[in-house]
C-alpha cells in the first residue's frame, strides 16, 4: 500500500526536479574523473558539490590518471581536477597541444616531491636535512642487499624523477630501488617506522604521510630548469640532474567543449582554488581518522560558502 502511494509522489518529485534545473546551460551530466588517491577524490568531490549547488548535473567517472587524457580528447570525460606539474605536465602539455583539451589553471595547491627521512635518522646521520650529510652516512641507510651502499626507495618507475641520475651526479653512495606502487612505498615506510629502522624514500605532499610520520624533506640544491637540461649548470660540471626535484602547481584541465556547453561551470572550475594546508587537513581526516570523502567534502562546502559562492556567481 505504501508502495503504491509513494510511486506517483516520486514521479512528481522528478518532474519538479527537472524544471528546477532548467536554468543551467545544459542538463547533460558534467563528467569529472576520479583517481585513486584521497586528495584528488576530495578536490573533485568539492568541485562536484559546488557545481551541484549551482544546479549542474554532475557525474563521477573512475579513470586512470594518465590514460584519462585519451578520454578528455574525445569528450568521453569532461574535467580532471588534479594534474600535478611534477607527474603529468608532459601529458597535459601534449593534450593541450592537440587543441582538444584546455588547461583550466592552477588549483592553488603546490606539489612537493623530494627525498624524505623520519626524524630518528638524524641520530645516525646528524648533518641532515642538508643533503651533503648523505655523502658520509650512506651506510646508515644500507640494507643487506645494498650494503655498503645506502638504499633509497624511489617511487614507481612511471613517476620518473631522475633519481638514478641524481645519485650519480651528486656522488651519493646510494642504490635506487623502485617501489611499484605508492601503496608499496608507504607500506615500507610504515613498517620501517614501527621498527625505527633506517629508511629514506620518495614522499610527496599534499599527502597524509608527512602528517602522520615525523620527518623532514632532504634539502638538495634548489631545482632549476637549466640544472636538469644543461650539464654545465650546478655542482657537477659534467652532469645534469645535480639538484633537487622540481615542485610545482597542481593544474586542472577540461575537454575543449566544456566552455561552450557549460560556460558557467567552466568559470567555476577555473575559479576553484584550495590551499595545501586545507587539503592536508582534509586528507588526514579521511585517511587517518577514517571519515568518508563525501563527509569531509560536504563539511568544507558547508563551512566555506563565502568562498565557493564567488566561484559560481
Amino acid at each position, binding site marked *: 500500500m505504501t508502495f503504491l502511494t509513494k510511486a506517483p509522489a516520486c514521479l512528481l518529485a522528478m518532474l519538479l*526536479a*527537472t524544471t528546477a534545473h532548467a536554468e543551467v546551460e545544459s542538463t547533460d551530466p558534467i563528467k569529472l574523473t576520479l583517481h585513486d588517491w584521497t586528495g584528488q577524490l576530495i578536490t573533485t568531490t568539492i568541485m562536484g558539490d559546488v557545481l551541484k549547488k549551482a544546479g549542474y548535473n554532475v557525474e563521477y567517472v573512475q579513470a586512470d590518471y594518465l590514460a584519462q587524457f585519451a578520454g578528455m580528447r574525445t569528450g*568521453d570525460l569532461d574535467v580532471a581536477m588534479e594534474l600535478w606539474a611534477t607527474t603529468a605536465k608532459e601529458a597535459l602539455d601534449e593534450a593541450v597541444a592537440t587543441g582538444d583539451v584546455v588547461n583550466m589553471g592552477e588549483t592553488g595547491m603546490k606539489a612537493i616531491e623530494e627525498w624524505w627521512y623520519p626524524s630518528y635518522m638524524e641520530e645516525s646521520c646528524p648533518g641532515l636535512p642538508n643533503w651533503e650529510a648523505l655523502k658520509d652516512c650512506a651506510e646508515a641507510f644500507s640494507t*643487506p642487499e645494498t650494503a655498503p651502499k645506502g638504499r633509497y626507495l624511489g617511487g614507481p618507475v612511471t613517476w620518473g624523477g631522475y633519481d638514478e641520475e641524481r645519485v650519480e651526479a651528486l656522488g651519493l653512495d646510494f642504490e635506487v630501488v*623502485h617501489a611499484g606502487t605508492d601503496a*608499496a612505498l608507504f*607500506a615500507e615506510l610504515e613498517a620501517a617506522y614501527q621498527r625505527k629502522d633506517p629508511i629514506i624514500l620518495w614522499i610527496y605532499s599534499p599527502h597524509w604521510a608527512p602528517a602522520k610520520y615525523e620527518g623532514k624533506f632532504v634539502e638538495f640544491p634548489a631545482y632549476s630548469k637549466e640544472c636538469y637540461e644543461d650539464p654545465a649548470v650546478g655542482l657537477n660540471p659534467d652532469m645534469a640532474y645535480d639538484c633537487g626535484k622540481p615542485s610545482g602547481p597542481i593544474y586542472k584541465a577540461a575537454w575543449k567543449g566544456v566552455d561552450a556547453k557549460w560556460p558557467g561551470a567552466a568559470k567555476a572550475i577555473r575559479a576553484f582554488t584550495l590551499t595545501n594546508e586545507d587539503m592536508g587537513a582534509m586528507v588526514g581526516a579521511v585517511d587517518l581518522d577514517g571519515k568518508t570523502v563525501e563527509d569531509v567534502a560536504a563539511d568544507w562546502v558547508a563551512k566555506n560558502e563565502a568562498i565557493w559562492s564567488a566561484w559560481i556567481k
Partner: protein
Amino acid sequence: MTALHRLIRDPRLFWGGLFALTLALSLFAGDLAKDIGAKWVMKFPKPLELPLDKLISAAMKWLLEEAAIGPLSFHAVTRFISALIEAPYLAVRGLLVDGLQRGQGSYAVQILPPLSWIAVTTIFCLLAWRSGRRGLVGLVGACFLYLAVFGRWESAMATLASVLISVPMGVAGGVALGILAFRHPWAERAMRPVLDLMQTVPVFAYLVPILFMFGFGPTAALVATVIYAMPPMVRLTTLALREVPEEVAEAGRMAGCTRRQLLWKCLIPTAMPMLMVGVNQVIMLSLNMVIIASMIGAGGLGYDVLTALRKLDIGGGVEAGVAIVVMAIALDRLSQAEARRVPGTGRGGRLVWIGLAVILATSALGYVLPFVQTYPAGATLTTGTIWAQAIEWININLYDHIEAVKVAILIGLLLPVKGFFLGIPWAWGIVAMGLIGWRMAGWRLGLMALLMTGFIALTGFWPEAMITVYLCGVSVFVAMLIGVPLGIWAGQSDRANTVLSALIDTLQTLPSFVYLIPVVMLFRVGDFSAMIAVVAYSIVPAIRYAAHGIREIDPQMVEAGIVSGCTRRQILWRIKLPLALPSLIVGMNQTVMLALSMLVITALVGTRDLGQQVYMALTKANTGQGIVAGLCVAFIAIMVDRILTAAARGMERGEAGHG
C-alpha cells in the same frame, strides 16, 4: 662425426653440455666482450631493434581516428558494441545497486529501490535449495550474510552485476567457439594460437586499446574480463564434445537426429560435467579480474581493496578481499550443484512464487522499515585494526628472524640465478632455445623457439625477458618444492584434501594485492616480495595436479608393491611418484602459466621485468610498447608450454614402452 652424433643422442651428454656451455658463457662472455669492446654481445644493438611498438601505436591511432567500413567509422562500430554490452549491465546494476532511476548523473531520481539485501540473499538461497542440498543453502546464506554484515553490500552487488554479465558472455562465446572448433578442423587450427595469446598476454597489455575502443567505464572492464576468462571455456568445450563416446552419437544418429538435434540433445548433455568445469573456470577467472577491472572504472569490491590498501588500511583490504573470495565460493558451488542436478528433480515452480513474494514483501516493507531494504550501517562488523596490529607485532618482534631467512634465500638462491640468466648473451640464448625445442620435439618446435626468442631480442626486451625468466623460474621451483608434497599428501588423505581445497580456493580468488602489502612490510620492496606473491598464486596447480596424479594411480600397482614387500617410502618413491610424473609435469606447466600471469602484479612491488614494461606502457597509454612486451611474455609462456607438453608426452610414451 660420431662424437657429435653421440653428443646429440645421449641425453646426459646433450643436457649437461648445453648447461655447461651456457654457464661458461654466462660467467665469462660479459667480461670478455667488455675487454674487446664488443658491447653488442651482451646488449642487442639499438639501431637494429625493430620499431614494432611504434608501428603498432601508429596502427592503433589510424584505426581509431581514420579507419572506416563504408560510411561507418571503426570508432562508431566499437562504441555501438559498447552500448550493446552496457544496456544489460545497467539493467542488472539497476536491479542490484541503483534501483530504477530517471535522469542522468546527479539529476537521477530513484523511482524504485534496488532489490533489498534480504531479497537477494533469499533468491540465492532458493537457488541453492532447488538443488536439494541443505548444506549448500547454509553456505550460500552465510556468504551473502558476510557481505551484508561486513558492510560490503553495495560494492559486492556492483561486482556481482558485472560478473552476472561477463560470465554468461564468456560461457556463451566459449561454447560457440568451442563448437566451431569441434566441427571444423580449420577453425581449431586458426583458433589455437589466438587462444594461446589470450591466455598468456598480460591483461594490462590490451587494456589501453580496449579503453580507446570502448570508452571509459564498466564496458571496457567487461570486455577485458571476457577476453581473459573465455579461453578455458573454448578449450574445454571442444575437448568435452570430442570425448563424448561414439556410441552416444551413434544412438542419436540412429534415432534420426538432425545435426542440430544431435549436438544439443545428445552431445552437449553428455558433455555437461566437463562443460561445467569450464563454467567454474570462467567464474573464477572473472573474479580474478575484479582488481584490474576496478583500475579502469569497474568500481565494486576491487576498488574497495585498492583504496583501503592505499591508506594502509590492511583490515579493510582483507575484508574486501575476503568478500571477493566468499562471492567466488558461493557462485562456484551454486553452478556446480546446478550442473549435477538431474533435470526434472528438485523443487521447481513453487520456489519462483516464494522468491517473488519475498521480493515484493521486502520492497514494500522497506519503505516503512529501512533496515529491510538496506542493511543498517550501525549493525556492521569490522575486524578494524586487528590485522594491522598483528602485522605490527610480527614486524617488531619477529623481523630479525624473517630478515635472516630472507637474506639467506636471497644470497643462496635468487641472486646467483639472476646473475646466471642476466649473463647469457642474447645470441647464445636464441641458439640454446632453438636447440632445446629441437631436442624435445623436433625441428618445428626448434624453429618456433628460435623465432620467438629472436623476436624478444629483436624488439629490445632481452634483459627484461631474462629477469622474467629468472623470477618465474625461481618461483616455480619454490612452488613445486612446497606444492608437490602438499599435493601428494592431499592425494593420499581425504581430510588433507578438504583442508587444502579451501586453501586453494582462497589462494586463487583472494586478490594478491591484499597480501602483497603486508608482504612488502615484512620483506621490503624487491624480488623477494615478488617471489612470495608469485609462489602464493602459482602453487595452486602444483598441489592440484600432484593430488590428481596420485589419486589416479591404478590401485593394483600399489597392491603389487605391497605384495612384493615394499616399505611405504618405497611405494611412494618407486611406484607412486614415477606413475604420477606426467601429471606433475602438466601441473608444472600450469604453474609456469600462472607465474607468468602474476608478473604484472609483481610490477606493483617494483620488479624490473617484462611485467613492469607492460605496466609502464599502461600508465603511459602506450599501446605499442604494451602489446610488444605482452607478446614477449606470451612467447615465453608458449615455448615453455610446448616444451613441457613434449616432455610429458615423451614420458608417457616411455612408460607405455616399458609396460
